């Protein structure tokens, strides 16, 4: 396709044929405001924020969907355009619960930013009837507050298109329109998988995770509690953004320092139990291959993916690895091995996890996740909640020194840290499985075919006379493609990694929210993943089975991978679920 030349605000611009005015304007360093637009998944021209004047056009046009033509003359900032955008904002506010002072999205709200940019002085200009909606607090992981919803439908697009689920949509019409589920099912009774991708794209405070920060503050203040925190691999790749740092900043050292200053008794790394997962999962895979077990085996680290499988492909749950997720393994080991070693009563331990994920809040309450008679994990926070705690405690994150994790559950390999990116679990497992199978040291540790942010990746590797065929999918609409292949008997993979969120945990539903205009122009997933791959590249140990604390854990406590004790503590079971639960 050739380029088209047009003028935007009297400046000549060339842009590829098929571009929209919004895209062409970006090439001219002009950002046209949007609220509903999300590239590829929500191009509906509904919110009218992006209106511009086109010479010769009868009325204002929506830049996000209007294609450019040769010789077109566009004006993005005329008084007419600005007046229209202002009116749109005033009308949105007329139906918006303006509790902005303490709103969870204050300072990070796309509606608030535009109101400020456009100088909306009278936020009650059209003060009329406003529907009152009850909050949906039914789900373990999130709250929907339709009183702050602007009906942009980004959440609907994320649920239906990105994840292929579609449990939420716009119901009724006109003034009565609201986002909800079929027949007003509570979210908890639908087949929502808790991935939180709807929260990640919400421009306002209408969708947010259930906040448990007060429970953590209370546990820390309780002298009878011993509060242990673990942080997932992807959190370090996101948290610094909450403190004004660019996307792709490694916040590991300062995060550890902040956690100590918050008062946690031990600051541990989920990377440790990611390595532990690899030990168990590689063992399970080799066992299935040798003993004609169910293949392909599919990873079970992502609780959003696991719940999706249970709802939508219940006939495939035997393909799921029985390994608990790293979060849960960590809790089970903390309340057994660590508690015994330190002489602490497991009942006194409060296990807090910090996760890039909202589904982890659901996972901690699942059945068969309490190996020691107490919940493996007590409180699961998102990256955003941890940032909120740090801000509330007045800790100046950016000025903190870089600190290191505590021991004995703080060691890890480079294989553990890349769990946070799509393909990372696969690569980590391959490093261990290949060496175990061949008994020889791998010359090349980088399995680059399974890296990158493509939705589906496939590769095959010759190992000890076998051709090991693997696949990796992230984002549930991509997973569906692989699952249908398995269902129809068209797949000959031995091992599959599936992550619920596109790009893996770095882009999880609990990570810092990125405004639409950044999301549409920056590859957030790749930038955050690069933090993890850099950490792996520079790690002194890059294979899970070589981590000293992991070896010690097996020597002193578990025996060997797949042992009875390991099974009891580190493995779990799954249930078949309905698509919507009818009472």
């Amino acid at each position: 396709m050739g380029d088209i030349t047009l003028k935007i605000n009297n400046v000549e611009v060339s842009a590829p044929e098929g571009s929209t005015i919004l895209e062409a304007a970006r090439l001219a360093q002009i950002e046209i405001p949007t609220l509903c637009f999300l590239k590829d998944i929500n191009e509906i021209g509904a919110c009218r924020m992006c209106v511009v004047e086109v010479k010769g056009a009868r009325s204002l046009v929506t830049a996000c969907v209007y294609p450019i033509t040769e010789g077109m003359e566009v004006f993005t900032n005329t008084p007419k355009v600005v007046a229209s955008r202002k009116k749109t904002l005033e009308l949105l506010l007329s139906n918006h619960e303006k509790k902005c002072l303490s709103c969870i999205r204050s300072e990070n709200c796309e509606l608030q930013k535009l109101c400020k940019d456009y100088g909306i002085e009278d936020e009650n200009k059209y003060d009329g009837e406003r529907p009152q909606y009850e909050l949906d607090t039914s789900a373990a992981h999130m709250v929907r507050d339709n009183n702050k919803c602007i009906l942009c439908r980004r959440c609907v697009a994320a649920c239906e298109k990105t994840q292929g689920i579609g449990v939420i949509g716009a119901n009724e019409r006109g003034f009565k329109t609201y986002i909800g589920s079929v027949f007003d099912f509570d979210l908890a009774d639908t087949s929502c998988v808790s991935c939180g991708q709807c929260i990640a794209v919400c421009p306002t405070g209408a969708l947010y995770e259930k906040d448990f920060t007060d429970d953590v503050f209370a546990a820390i203040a309780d002298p009878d509690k011993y509060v242990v925190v673990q942080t997932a691999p992807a959190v370090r790749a996101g948290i610094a953004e909450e403190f004004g740092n660019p996307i792709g900043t490694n916040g590991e050292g300062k995060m550890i320092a902040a956690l100590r200053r918050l008062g946690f008794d031990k600051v541990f790394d989920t990377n440790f139990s990611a390595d532990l997962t690899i030990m168990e999962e590689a063992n399970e895979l080799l066992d299935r291959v040798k003993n004609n077990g169910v293949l392909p085996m599919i990873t079970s680290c992502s609780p959003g993916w696991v719940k999706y499988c249970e709802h939508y492909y219940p006939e495939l749950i035997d393909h799921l690895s029985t390994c608990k997720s790293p979060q849960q393994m960590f809790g089970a080991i903390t309340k057994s091995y660590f508690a015994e070693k330190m002489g602490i009563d497991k009942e006194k331990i409060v296990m807090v996890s910090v996760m890039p994920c909202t589904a982890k809040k659901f996972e901690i309450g699942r059945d068969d996740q309490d190996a020691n008679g107490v919940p493996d994990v007590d409180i699961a926070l998102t990256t955003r909640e941890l940032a909120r705690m740090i801000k509330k405690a007045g800790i100046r994150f950016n000025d903190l020194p870089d600190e290191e994790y505590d021991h004995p559950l703080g060691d890890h390999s480079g294989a553990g840290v890349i769990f946070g990116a799509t393909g990372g679990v696969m690569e980590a497992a391959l490093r261990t499985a290949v060496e175990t199978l061949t008994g020889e040291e791998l010359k090349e540790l980088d399995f680059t075919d399974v890296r990158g942010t493509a939705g589906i990746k496939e590769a095959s590797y010759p190992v000890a006379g076998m051709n090991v065929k693997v696949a990796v999918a992230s984002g549930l609409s991509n997973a569906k493609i692989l699952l249908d292949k398995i269902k129809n008997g068209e797949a000959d993979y031995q091992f599959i990694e599936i992550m619920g969120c596109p790009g893996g945990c770095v882009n999880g539903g609990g990570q810092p929210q990125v405004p639409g205009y950044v999301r549409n122009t920056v590859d957030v997933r790749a930038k955050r993943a690069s933090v993890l791959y850099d950490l792996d590249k520079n790690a002194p140990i890059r294979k899970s089975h070589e981590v000293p604390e992991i070896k010690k854990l097996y020597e002193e406590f578990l025996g060997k991978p797949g042992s009875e004790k390991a099974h009891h503590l580190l493995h779990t079971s799954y249930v078949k679920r309905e698509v919507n639960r009818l009472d």
Partner: protein
Amino acid sequence: MKNSGGIPFKGTEEQKQQLLKVINDLRDTSGCLMPIMQAAQDIYGYLPYEVQKIISDELGVPVEKVYGVATFYAQFNLNPKGENTVSVCLGTACYVKGSGLVLEEIEKQLGIGDGECTSDGKFSLDTCRCVGACGLAPVMLVNEDVYGKVTPDQVKGILDKYK
């Protein structure tokens, strides 16, 4: 959950086969959801969850999407029709003559709102726009029977005739 007025779904196998045939005939045409939903309503009289679920499963679209369409258009009913269908005209003439108050009284008497059906299946309630009898405003109908110049205090007597 708003189930269909608490009335259990009584679809038959024959109705299901009819619906599946319609879906199979139309599934490859673009924009087939609306005509399929219209046919489903002809077959069942309304679109309860169970019927929307069949459409959703067969077409591979989320059931929420079917529900979104069903609640967007006034032509679709989520509740069954009662043995007796009560209708109140809210057209201009009837409305200025007080049909809004008549509707309120019927809602009070039956304990249901517009578009709903009583849990015993006896009465369903709808509103309409002009039945061509403006001279009799305000007008209400029960089945084919037209009642003109209705006042709220007459409502109970009218409904009692059909109990």
